[in-house]
């Protein structure tokens, strides 16, 4: 591999991994948000909104 080969490997892996992590993070986020909405607002939050 020439110089650029290593650079490509490094940048590719790093940003690839970050993107993958970001996607898994977003998936966890959406799952949690869905479950939160499903369970409905808590009495405490309902009290907050009234304020």
């Amino acid at each position, binding site marked *: *591999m*020439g*110089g*650029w080969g*290593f*650079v490509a*490997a*490094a*940048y590719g*892996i*790093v940003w690839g*991994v*970050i993107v993958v*992590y*970001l996607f898994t*993070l*977003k998936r*966890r*986020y959406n799952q*949690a*948000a869905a*479950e*939160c909405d499903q*369970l*409905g607002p*808590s*009495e405490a*939050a309902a009290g*907050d*909104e009234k304020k």
Partner: protein
Amino acid sequence: MTKQRQSAKKRRGILGGLALTAILFSLYWSLVIAPPDAYQGEVQRIMYLHLPSILIAYLSYFLVFIGSGLYLWKREKRDDILAYAAAELGVLFTALTIVEGSIWGRPTWGVWWTWDARLTLTAILLLIYVGYLMLRSLIEDENRAAVAAAVLGIIGFLDIPLIHMSVYWWRTLHQPPSILRPDKLPWENVHPSMLTALTISFVAFLLLYFYLLSLRYRVGEMRQEIKALRLERGI
């Protein structure tokens, strides 16, 4: 969604947008504008990833330390959530640092790995915080896990200077006579645009980090809410 949540989400979105812009900008500077190094050639560009990565990792572990300390002191769940989130991100960036270092090392020193001070230290760091994550996941009771992890978070961070000292001494006192000196960064002539590339890269990584942290933190927060809601509903 409450008004607070909505504005938090919007701020996160803006942060994400800024991060993306900075990343694109830094890619351009690092790969196009900055000149290749006189000695290392193009491979030196990996440093624009490597240095910010390790600094971000240390920042992360510092946050683990702070979160752990605050949690043990005040027992507010949000500090524990912060510590956990920061540990996860810390492991991510430490692993990336090692990969970057290894890829940089192959053309520079001719080997994929060497037990020089920097690489060894980064590997130890990774082991410590992987241990942290394992500890958290292997303790059933969440509150116990939080306290145990917080103690480990503090002890681990306190140990880091000692580990630094011992590994550096180990490496410098027994330096075999060789042409290559993996301990020193072979940066002879630092071109100004290289510094700019580095700075932009660092800013990009920083923004990215805080974006990821806020996302991860929110996930942790929601998990707590889910637990509380389940308790309320008697599920």
